[in-house]
């Protein structure tokens, strides 16, 4: 059995004291990097690249991968505690995670995130080990039309992310799409809405916008309430998830893991989109969708499982084909080259110690992260006991330093502050921020895929229905949009073909 031999080889590499140490260092640094807003896994891996020079390639890649999936654990911490995503794949976690913290259940949120991450990470590695080569083939068979359909499906979950009013949610989604058109045209290369400012040439960066809308707006909102100087007064109870939490989360973890792994394996999609889709899916199929965003545990478990599984999935095209599917794996590709390895279809055959050693080390690393994160969850949660007046400047400092450090750009600081104020106003008047952020991320990807598809078909729209996967995704998206309307007409008894009263009704 080749597989068993390979696994034995892998563990013989991963379980040397030296490599256990490097996996631990990677996981620990990754957790810290993930927790700090601004420095995401790609920057973290890049910054630590020079440290790995001179190390054995297997040790080096074990450490870098540790940083990558460690960051997926760490990103949860700030999302839950201060409503500021530590890295982009944790944006969805803020929605329910922070609400849980506000109810005094930060420990349970962090604990469940760690456990969900562990399950997803381990299952992801298992899938990577067993099915990497065939999966890589499926992943690359996704062309622009399939991506477009996937993005449409992602955007239709928009309506599922909104709070009380569907209309307000849709409106914010449209604003996000409009903001997403800022920057260099992806096909023709013309500048759009940049007003000659080179800082806008690449569009509005997603992280400053998210930090502003979620983190800074939250602070402004709390400062505005004089009676609530210490916003989270609730007793911090339930440091570990309860039996009920388990029952609620089990399915979400399973679905998040499966979805996350596959989306992660698609070149160009990645952990952030995986977490969006997982949250949307969970809300779609939940028995209590109206309670998403109010602090329920599956709203944390789903995206956190998805982003960890996606981190394992992203290694599929990298290791099997030498094609990086995300910013972080692009850096890791550069790293492999620097170590004198040649990433490509032959890597698994020519350097089995590196590939199987990495896979085995990820089991070890995930166990370490669980051990690291579970006991620390209550410790992190106790941060919320700090008086808010002392916490505010610290949070602002962390958030702004993080935003600046992404591109060393003061312009981004301005963006974060501006969106902080916008976010405060939106909150005040009950407009949800999440659809805006989602549309800002998915919009440009969707536009590019749409136009690429039309380039492929030379302008014919048939390409969206003749490809089975594309047609299937679009059909599901259509059902997602139409089904609630049909149900509503039925409940009215007598269908009225004018949609206006429906909108008015939900808007109220």
């Amino acid at each position, binding site marked *: 059995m080749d597989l068993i031999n390979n696994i034995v080889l892998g563990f013989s590499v991963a379980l040397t004291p030296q490599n256990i140490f490097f996996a631990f260092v990677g996981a620990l640094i990754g957790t810290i990097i993930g927790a700090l807003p601004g420095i995401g896994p790609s920057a973290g891996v890049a910054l630590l690249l020079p440290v790995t020079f001179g190390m054995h390639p297997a040790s080096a890649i074990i450490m870098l991968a540790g940083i990558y999936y460690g960051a997926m654990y760490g990103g949860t911490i700030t999302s839950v505690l201060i409503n500021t995503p530590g890295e982009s794949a944790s944006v969805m976690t803020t929605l329910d995670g922070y609400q849980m913290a506000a109810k005094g259940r930060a420990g349970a949120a962090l604990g469940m995130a760690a456990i969900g991450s562990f399950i997803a990470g381990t299952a992801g590695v298992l899938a990577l080990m067993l099915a990497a080569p065939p999966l890589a083939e499926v992943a*690359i068979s996704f062309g622009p039309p399939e991506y477009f359909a996937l993005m449409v499906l992602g955007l239709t979950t928009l309506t599922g992310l909104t709070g009380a009013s569907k209309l307000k949610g849709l409106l914010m989604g449209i604003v996000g799409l409009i903001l997403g058109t800022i920057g260099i045209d*992806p096909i023709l290369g013309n500048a759009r809405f940049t007003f000659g400012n080179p800082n806008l*040439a690449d569009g509005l960066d997603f992280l400053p916008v998210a930090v502003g809308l979620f983190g800074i707006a939250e602070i402004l909102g709390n400062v505005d309430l004089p009676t609530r100087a210490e916003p989270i007064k609730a007793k911090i109870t339930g440091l570990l998830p309860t039996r009920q939490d388990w029952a609620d989360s089990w399915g979400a973890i399973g679905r998040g893991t499966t979805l996350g792994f596959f989306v992660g394996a698609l070149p*160009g999609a990645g952990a952030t989109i995986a977490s969006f889709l997982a949250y949307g899916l969970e809300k779609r199929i939940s028995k209590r969708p109206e309670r998403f965003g109010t602090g329920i545990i599956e709203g944390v478990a789903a995206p956190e499982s998805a982003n960890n599984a996606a981190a394992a999935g992203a290694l599929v095209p990298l290791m099997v084909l030498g094609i990086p599917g995300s910013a972080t794996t692009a850096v890791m590709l550069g790293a492999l080259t620097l170590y004198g390895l040649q990433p490509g279809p032959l890597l698994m055959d020519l350097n089995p110690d590196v590939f199987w050693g990495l896979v085995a080390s990820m089991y070890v690393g995930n166990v370490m992260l669980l051990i690291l994160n579970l006991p620390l969850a209550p410790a992190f949660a106790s941060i919320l006991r700090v008086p808010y007046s002392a916490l505010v400047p610290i949070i602002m400092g962390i958030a702004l330093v993080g935003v600046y450090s992404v591109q060393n750009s003061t312009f981004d600081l301005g963006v974060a502050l501006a969106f902080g104020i916008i976010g405060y106003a939106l909150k005040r008047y009950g407009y949800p921020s999440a659809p805006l952020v989602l549309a800002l991320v998915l919009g440009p990807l969707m536009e590019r895929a749409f136009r690429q598809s039309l*380039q492929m078909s030379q302008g014919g729209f048939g390409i969206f229905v003749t490809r089975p996967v594309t047609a299937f995704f679009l059909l599901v998206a259509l059902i997602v949009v139409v089904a609630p309307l049909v149900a509503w007409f039925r409940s009215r008894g007598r269908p009225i073909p004018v949609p206006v009263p429906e909108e008015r009704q939900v808007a109220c």
Partner: protein
Amino acid sequence: MVVQAAPGGGSDILARTVGDILNKERIVEQPIAVVNRPGGSGAIAYAYLNEKKGDPHFIATVTASYLTTAIQGQSPVSYRDFSNHAVLAVDDFIAVVRANAPYSTLQELVDAAKAAPNSIRVGTTQVGSSDSIIELRLEQAAGIELNAVTFNSAGEVNAALLGSSVDLAFANPGEVRELIRARRLKQLAVFAPQRLAGFEDLPTARDAGYDVNVEQFRGVVGPAGLTPDQQLYWQNALYRMTETAGWKDYIEKNTLRPLVLVGQDAEQYIARESAQLTEALKGLGVAQ
């Protein structure tokens, strides 16, 4: 040392390699710190460097975007606003197709394109990139029409090629070497003046009768307003850097072609490239 890209990409690794060798070999005694100023296809980094006029403590690694961003009117400063210290190497492009493609030579591809115009999909990175220029020049030289699909990065182009979304790509040898060796892709021709070391079996486009020659240079520049001595210092330092084993190793691993030009020679090379790129980008309709 200023880099026009985010940490981790090819440009960043180039800058860190250059900085590392300059320090390690004690060619430059002052420790070199790398500053990443990504964004605007390099415009942000070039604007930043332009603010440092007369300061010899700043250098920047540059590649084709140094010229194309200005030509496309996305940067107010051009190569004339800087001290062009050195050209270090060039990266070539080879035409690759899937291993099971019905054509094995550039001529067969051209014949297929002639038989059915626009039937062959070519994946390119943004309009104005070196590979989009090859596409245009090849179309002109061979009198064919290809159907271009535009992607974000070379990695996405390669994935699309393997996944049959496109049929042809123009890639740097280092990016596709392993895919060719694994018989997933096959190479048709290189767009260089002569055959490449390590790719001796691969004909040039000129061998096939299409005089298309596009290369992407890697160089180092500094702000304007330096004294002749300061310019000479960097020219010497960079020339010595290219003689080191560490640099030769980098060249080999990334399948670059060594081309070392300093001072006047570098200025002339960059001016010539800029003129050629301007003409090519006008052909693509994106020059300002």
